[in-house]
C-alpha cells in the first residue's frame, strides 16, 4: 500500500506477527536476575559447604598447608584410590558394552519392545536392592546360593577376590539399560537420508561405525560416560551391603574410606582432604566430558521420531534374537530371585534357595512391615515429593535465565561450568558442613533438611537439562520476549516439544534418585525421617537370616520407582537426549 504525502511517497508493507498479540510491559533490567535467585539460594547449600570443606582440607594447626593430605600416604588410602579408579575403568568398559547391545537391539527391532523394559527395570532400583539381589544369588552356601548350587564345587563367591565378580555384576545389571537406551535413541535419530547415502557409498561394518555412528553419537556418549563415571565414583552403598565385613577393607573405595576416616578421626582435616581428592578426580572427568557437551547441548533438537528399521541379514537377525533373549532372561533373573525370596518365610529363605517349594508365605512381608517399612515408605514419599517439587520450581526459572535471560556470554559460560562441576560433586564434599548447619538450625532429623539437600544436589543437573530444552526456542521470539513485547509463556508454548520431556525427565529422575537414596540419608538424616533404604540396610545386618525380610522390603521399596520409570521412560530418554541429536 502506497501513501503519497506531498512529494514523498511512503510505502507501507505488512509484516508477519511472530508473537502473540499481548500488551507489552516496560522492561526492568533487574528482573531476569531475580529468576536466578532461588537457584542461587538453593545452590549455596552446596557452594558454601564446598568452600568450607576445601578450607578445612588445607588448614592445619600451624596455618595453611598440605599436612592433612598425609592421610593419602596410608596403605588403605592408596588402596581406596586405586579401587575408585578401577571402578571408573569398569564404568568406561560398560559404556562400550552398552553401545554394542544398542547395536544388537537395532538389528532386531521386534525384540526391542520386550527387551527394553527388562533392561531398564534395574535402573529404577537402588544400589542396596541390587546389592542384596546379587548377594542372594552368590551366597556361598549351596543350599541357598543359586550360583553355588548350579556350579557345585565353586569358589567362595563373597570371599577374598571373588567379591569383585559380585560387585561388578550388580553394577552392570543396574546401569546397562540406561547406557543402551540412550545409545539406542541416538542411533534411531540418525536421519534416514544419511543412512541411505552411506549405504549408496558402500560403507559397511567397522568403517561405517567409525565414519557415521560414532561421530554422530558423540554428544550422547558424553552424557552417558559422564553419568557412569559419576556413578562409579559414588559406589558406596553397594559395597556396604554386598561385601562381608572382613573383605570390606579390600573392597574399599574413596567414598567409603572417607566415611570411615571421618568417623574415626577427631579432626575434620584428613577426611576433608580425602573428599577434595575424590572431588578433583570426578571434576576433571566431568570438565573433559563437558567440552563435547557444551557445543551440542545448545543446539535445537529434532524430536521427530524415526520409524524403526532393520537392515540386517536373516543370519544376523537370528544371532541378534539369540543374544537378545539370553540377555533379557539373565536381566530378569535377579528380579525373579528377589521376588521369590520375598515370598518365602524368613526361616525358609535362610535355609533354602528361592527355588525351594517349601516355606512359601508372606511372613517376610510381615517381618518387613514390623521393621518400620510403612512408616519409612511414607517418609520417603514425603522427602522425594518435596525435593522433586522444589527442584522443579527452582530449576525452571534458572534454566530460562541461563538460556535466554540475556546474560553476558562469558558469564553464562561460567555459570554452566559451575553447574557441571556441582552436578558431579560427591557428597563427602558438602556433607559435614551441611550437617553442622542443620544441627545449628535444629533441623537435624527433619525431613525438610533431607529434602533440601536432595533438591540442592539435583538442581544443577536439572538446570543444565532444562536449559538445553529452552535453547531450542527460535531466537526472534526470544528477542521479543527480552524486549517485553511477548510474555515468557509464549516461549514455553513454543518449546513445549522439547521442554516437556526435559521437565518430565528432571522430575522423574529426581524422584527416583531421592527415593532410592541411601548415602544422603545415612550422612545427613536423623531417625524420624529414617527412609526406606536405611531400614533395608538395618535389616541386612545379619544377611542370611534376614534375606527374606530384606528381599520383601526391597520388593516393596522398588514398586514405586519401577512403575514410575517404566511408565515415563520413553519421555525421559527424549528429555535426556534433548539437544544431543544431530
Amino acid at each position: 500500500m502506497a501513501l503519497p504525502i506531498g512529494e514523498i511517497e511512503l510505502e507501507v508493507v505488512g509484516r508477519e506477527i511472530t508473537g502473540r498479540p499481548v500488551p507489552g510491559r516496560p522492561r526492568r533490567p533487574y528482573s531476569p536476575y531475580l529468576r536466578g535467585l532461588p537457584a542461587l539460594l538453593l545452590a549455596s547449600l552446596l557452594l558454601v559447604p564446598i568452600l568450607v570443606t576445601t578450607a578445612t582440607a588445607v588448614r592445619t594447626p600451624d596455618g595453611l598447608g598440605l599436612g592433612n593430605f598425609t592421610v593419602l600416604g596410608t596403605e588403605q588410602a592408596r588402596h581406596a584410590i586405586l579401587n575408585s579408579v578401577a571402578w571408573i575403568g569398569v564404568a568406561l568398559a560398560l559404556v562400550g558394552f552398552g553401545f554394542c547391545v544398542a547395536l544388537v537391539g537395532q538389528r532386531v527391532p521386534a525384540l526391542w519392545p520386550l527387551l527394553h523394559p527388562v533392561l531398564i527395570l534395574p535402573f529404577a532400583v537402588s544400589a542396596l536392592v541390587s546389592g542384596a539381589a546379587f548377594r542372594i544369588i552368590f551366597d556361598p552356601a549351596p543350599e541357598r546360593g543359586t550360583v553355588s548350587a548350579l556350579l557345585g564345587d565353586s569358589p567362595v563367591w563373597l570371599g577374598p577376590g571373588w567379591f569383585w565378580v559380585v560387585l561388578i555384576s550388580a553394577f552392570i545389571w543396574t546401569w546397562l539399560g540406561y547406557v543402551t537406551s540412550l545409545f539406542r535413541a541416538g542411533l534411531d535419530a540418525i536421519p534416514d537420508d544419511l543412512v541411505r547415502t552411506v549405504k549408496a557409498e558402500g560403507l559397511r561394518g567397522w568403517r561405517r561405525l567409525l565414519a557415521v555412528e560414532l561421530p554422530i553419537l558423540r554428544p550422547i556418549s558424553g552424557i552417558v560416560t559422564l553419568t557412569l563415571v559419576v556413578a562409579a565414583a559414588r559406589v558406596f552403598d553397594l559395597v556396604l551391603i554386598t561385601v562381608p565385613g572382613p573383605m570390606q577393607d579390600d573392597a574399599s573405595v574413596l567414598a567409603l574410606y572417607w566415611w570411615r576416616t571421618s568417623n574415626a578421626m577427631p579432626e575434620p582435616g584428613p577426611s576433608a582432604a580425602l573428599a577434595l581428592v575424590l572431588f578433583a578426580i570426578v571434576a576433571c572427568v566431568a570438565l573433559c566430558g563437558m567440552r563435547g557437551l557444551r557445543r551440542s547441548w545448545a543446539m535445537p533438537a529434532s524430536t521427530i521420531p524415526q520409524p524403526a528399521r532393520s537392515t540386517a541379514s536373516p543370519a544376523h537377525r537370528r544371532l541378534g534374537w539369540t543374544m537378545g533373549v539370553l540377555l533379557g532372561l539373565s536381566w530378569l533373573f535377579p528380579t525373579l530371585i528377589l521376588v521369590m525370596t520375598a515370598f518365602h518365610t524368613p526361616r525358609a529363605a535362610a535355609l533354602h534357595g528361592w527355588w525351594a517349594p517349601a516355606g512359601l508365605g508372606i511372613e517376610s512381608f510381615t517381618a518387613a512391615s514390623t521393621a518400620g517399612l510403612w512408616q519409612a515408605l511414607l517418609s520417603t514419599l514425603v522427602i522425594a515429593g518435596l525435593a522433586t517439587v522444589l527442584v522443579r520450581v527452582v530449576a525452571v526459572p534458572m534454566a530460562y535465565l541461563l538460556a535466554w535471560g540475556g546474560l553476558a556470554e562469558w558469564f553464562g559460560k561460567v555459570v554452566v561450568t559451575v553447574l557441571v562441576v556441582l552436578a558431579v560433586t560427591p557428597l563427602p564434599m558438602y556433607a559435614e558442613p551441611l550437617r553442622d548447619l542443620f544441627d545449628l538450625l535444629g533441623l537435624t532429623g527433619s525431613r525438610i533438611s533431607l529434602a533440601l539437600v536432595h533438591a540442592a544436589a539435583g538442581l544443577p543437573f536439572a538446570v543444565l537439562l532444562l536449559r538445553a530444552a529452552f535453547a531450542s526456542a527460535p531466537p526472534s521470539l526470544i528477542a521479543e520476549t527480552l524486549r517485553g513485547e511477548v510474555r515468557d509463556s509464549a516461549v514455553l508454548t513454543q518449546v513445549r516439544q522439547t521442554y516437556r520431556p526435559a521437565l518430565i525427565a528432571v522430575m522423574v529422575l529426581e524422584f527416583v534418585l531421592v527415593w532410592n537414596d541411601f548415602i544422603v540419608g545415612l550422612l545427613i538424616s536423623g531417625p524420624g525421617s529414617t527412609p526406606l533404604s536405611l531400614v533395608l540396610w538395618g535389616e541386612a545386618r545379619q544377611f542370611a537370616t534376614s534375606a527374606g525380610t530384606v528381599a520383601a522390603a526391597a520388593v516393596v521399596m522398588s514398586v514405586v520407582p519401577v512403575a514410575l520409570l517404566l511408565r515415563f521412560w520413553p519421555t525421559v530418554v527424549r528429555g535426556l537426549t534433548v539437544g544431543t541429536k544431530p
Partner: protein
Amino acid sequence: MPSRRAFLAAAALTAATSGCAGPADALLGVGPVVRVAVSWSAAELEAFRAVLDSLDVGYRVDLIPLGDEIATAFGSRTAHRPDVVMLPRPGLVRTHLRELDPLPDDLLPQPWPYAEVWRPMLCHAGRWYGLPFKSAHKSTVWYRRSVFDDHGLPPPQGWREWLALNRTLSERGVTPLALPGADGWMLTDFFENVLLGYAPDAYDRLTGPGPVSLSDEPAVSQALGLLGQMWASTGSADGVQRALVQQFSDAVVEVFGYQRAAMVVAPDFAEPLVRDFARGDFEIFTFPTVDEAPATPGHRSGPLRLLIGGDVAVVRAGSIPEARDLVIRLTDPQAALPWIRDYHGFLAPNKDTPYRDYTPEARKLAGQLSANGPALRFDLSDQLGPLGEGLGTVLQGFLAQVGGRGDRADLTVPVEWARRRLAELERRLGEFRG
C-alpha cells in the same frame, strides 16, 4: 510465569514448615521427639519397639538402627545426633564423656540394682554417664544335643577336654565348630574368652588404666597359640574360606539349620535364632576354663571367669529432658519384660527383674551372671578403642592362616604374624595420636 509460581510454592513450603503443631509436623519430622540410636536389627529391633510401646511414654520416640556402625552415632562430628544411644560397647562411654550428660543423682535407681562390674565402665568422677539396659553373657557355647548324645560325648569341662572332643568329632566326620569369621566381634569374643581363662592377670592389666600393648604382652601370644590350636582343628581350608564370609547368624544356621557343625560360640542373645532353627535340638555349656599351665610365672589360671558385654543407655549432651526420662524409665526392673517374655535372648542387668519369664537357658545364664559377680569381665576389644577394632581384623587374618591345619600343626608362624600385625597397628595408632 515460572518465577511467580516459584514464589507461591516457596510460600506454601514456608507455611508448612513454620507451623508449630499438627499432622504437618509429623509428616515433616519436626517437633519434640527423643531419637534413640540402637545397634539392633530384625527381631531385636522389634523387641525393643515392644519395650518402648509398653513403657507408654508421653512423647514420640524414634529409632535409628545403626547396626555395626553404632559408633558413628557417637562422637562430636556425627550425622545422627541422637538424644539417647543404646550403646552395645560400654567401653566407648569413657572416651566420650565430654559429649554426654551425666544422669542426675536423685533420679538414679535406689537401692542400687546393678553388679559392681558396671561401675568402672559407666561411673566417672562420681557421676553416672549411662545405665545398663541389657547384659550379654559372652562365655556361652551352643551345641546340638543329638550329636553329643549320638557319639556318647559329655559337654567339655576344660580346654583340653574340649580339644579332645573336637578331635573325636572330626575323626567321626563331624565338623566341630562353626566360626563366624565375617563378624570381627565374634572372633574377638572367642579370643578374649581364651585370654581371660588362660591369663586373667594379664587380662586385668590390659583392661586397666594406662597405656597397653597387645604385641608386647607374652600372654597374648600364648593365648593366640591356644586359640589357633582350637581354630585349626575345625574344618578344611575351604571351610575357612567359607568361615570368613560367615556372619554370626550364618554360623548359627550352619550348626542348627544345615547341621554341618556341632557347636558355635555365641552370646546368650543367639537364643531366638537358635530356637528358631534348632527346633528343640540344642543345649548350652559354659566356655570351658583354660586349664593349660601358663608358660611364664606369675600367671594363675583361676576359677570360672565370665566374659560379659551389654547395651547401656547414654544421654548425649544438650538433649531434651525427655531423653533423660526415657533412660530412667528403661532402667525399671519390669521395663524389659516384653522382650524377655515374647522375644527371648535378653538378660536383664537389673537384679530385681523377675526370673519367671526367662526360658530355662536364659534363666541358667542369668543365674550364672548374678552368682559370679566378681568373676565378670567386660570384653577387652571394647576397652581398647581403635586397637580393639583392629584386633578383630587381625584375628580374621589369623583365622585365614590357621584354619584347617589340624590341631597338631605348628602355629609359630601365624602367631608371630598376628603379633607383628598388632605391633604395626599399635605403631600406626600411636602416630595418629601423636
